[in-house]
């Protein structure tokens, strides 16, 4: 495992220095995580693919600003999340189209829609935090490094985010029972 990490590291270093093949290898390594993130935010296949294109564009332009090579995945996912959040704001909508529903689950199984809707009601930071932690299993320590905040602060935010999520879910439950 140690060998693999070292190799990854030098790949990122090469990409930062302008090695195009190294950059493309990194994109291909993380493309599935990026696609799933885009789909989770945008709920639409075509838009998710467009997002991949835009994120590749931004990542290539900005890879030189990446300070810590071992966080390249988190860095890419953050670019994707920022893109998606802006995109949603600009288009002012959250949609669940039929194609998407059939892709992600059967019709009897709508539970995930409830949680997804709840996620979309969180503020940007809270949603991003839950996404990084639970969707990509990124450690609090790494998120804290990436955001340049003490670990304790990020933990507090995570608790707040989960509490907000609970609040939204409970509110929905109550409304449903009336």
């Amino acid at each position, binding site marked *: 495992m140690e060998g693999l990490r070292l190799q990854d590291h030098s790949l990122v270093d090469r990409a930062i220095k*302008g090695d*195009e093949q190294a*950059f*493309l290898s990194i*994109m*291909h390594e993380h*493309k*599935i995580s990026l*696609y*799933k993130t885009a*789909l*989770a935010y945008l709920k639409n*296949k*075509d838009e998710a*693919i*467009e997002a*991949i*294109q*835009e*994120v*590749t*564009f*931004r990542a*290539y*332009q*900005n890879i*030189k*600003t990446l300070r810590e090579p071992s966080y390249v995945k988190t*860095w890419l996912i*953050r*670019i994707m999340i*920022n893109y998606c959040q802006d995109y949603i704001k*600009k*288009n*002012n909508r959250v949609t669940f189209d039929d194609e998407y529903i059939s*892709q*992600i*689950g059967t019709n009897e199984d709508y*539970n*995930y829609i409830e*949680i*997804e809707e709840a*996620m979309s009601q969180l503020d940007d930071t809270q949603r991003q935090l*839950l996404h990084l932690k*639970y*969707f990509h299993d990124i450690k609090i320590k790494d998120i804290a490094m990436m955001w340049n905040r003490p670990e304790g602060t990020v933990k507090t935010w995570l*608790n707040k985010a*989960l*509490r907000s*999520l*609970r609040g939204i*879910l409970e509110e929905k439950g109550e409304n449903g029972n009336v």
Partner: protein
Amino acid sequence: MFENEERELKNLKEKYENVDIPLVEIDEAIQIGFQNAKEVMMITKPKRKFSIWSIIAAAIFLFGILASIRVSPTFADYLTKVPGMEKIVEMVRVRHDKGLLSAVENKYAQKIGTSQEKNGIKVTIDSVIADEQDIVLFYTIDSNSKQKNFEIDEAYLKPSNGEKLPEHSLSFGGTVDKVKGQYTSTVEYDFDKPYEQQDFNLVLKIKNEKQSAQFSIPLSIKKHEKTNQIYELNKTVMIDDQKIKIKKVTIYPLRVAVQVEMDPSNSKKILDFSDIKLVDQNGEVWSKITNGTTAKNISDNERIVFLQSNYFKDPKELYFVINKLQAIDKEDEYLLVDTETQKILKQPNGNFLSDIVKEGDTIFFTLNTKKEFNYNMIGSIFDANGKEIESNESYIGGSVSNKQRIGFKISSRQKYMNPIKINLVYFPSYIKGDVKVRVK
């Protein structure tokens, strides 16, 4: 403590483990994004030869922050009856210009539909929206093969009678990149006085890495009556101790032109009218034009800024509002750098720029701002002896973690003496105020 929520989140993650992954399309998107980043990101400066006035770089296809535009029910009804109109409305909507949309509602859009095909690439002129001093032309490039990544080299209108067009500014968009292989774009003219010609050819040169092609497609533009309304105001307002005279407001069907003059004794140089708008008696707002020509410089201190038109709405009362301007101290309006030692010797207050580095012929900076800054700040460049240095390409990267890479290229055949002085034509430094002037 949050076991339920955590379990739900884990279930959600598992759901996504099972989604279809369209690998072919993802790989294609990575390839296009990569190519675009490598090639298209070099922004060519607007060609000056088209106008005696310098044209303020138009932020083409940087999306405005406007709310979505609604279409009235009668208009929606009309749309369904005229085939092809829906597409035109869709193209107009993307521009976030409600004045332009209202011109379409008032039958200012002319459907064209003429096309030409070469080497498997088909160009269709979809429509033209025009008033006596403006032309906005929409076209589509369809490619039946796998060819992608088109770049527009040149796009302009050539009068059929061989005459020259009056003074104007011309802007044409890069292609709006649809993954599906269809591209839509615009060619836009803003004339300084009414144009007489009606018959034109759209000349279009496009290329991608494999080939290039030139198209010439005829079209006629229906004449419009003289329609503009002029309001002479000559009122002076103050924002942060800077005097600005609002000279004249001209309302055309497709745009509103506001002519302003900055007092030469001002301590700051106004670079851009960032937050300005027109407001009527009911609070309805018409914002700046964000696509196409956004402003024109008449002289150092005088300029015309363009806003979306409310010509068809014809409100009873109308106000011009200024809230925010991009401005820097006059003694600060340049950047002094040494490209040899890679040092920034002087920059405006705020230390927005850092990490100057020379890579090949291109000099890069990091711009540190909280909000993405999509203006090309690089103006004329002079070396230590006062000799002007030419830079034909500049670069603006997207914002990541509040950092953007910006740069400009100086071709290696140009010899110059360090340090070089770069005039700043835009900068992320602002003054704010609350100015409201009655237009009518």
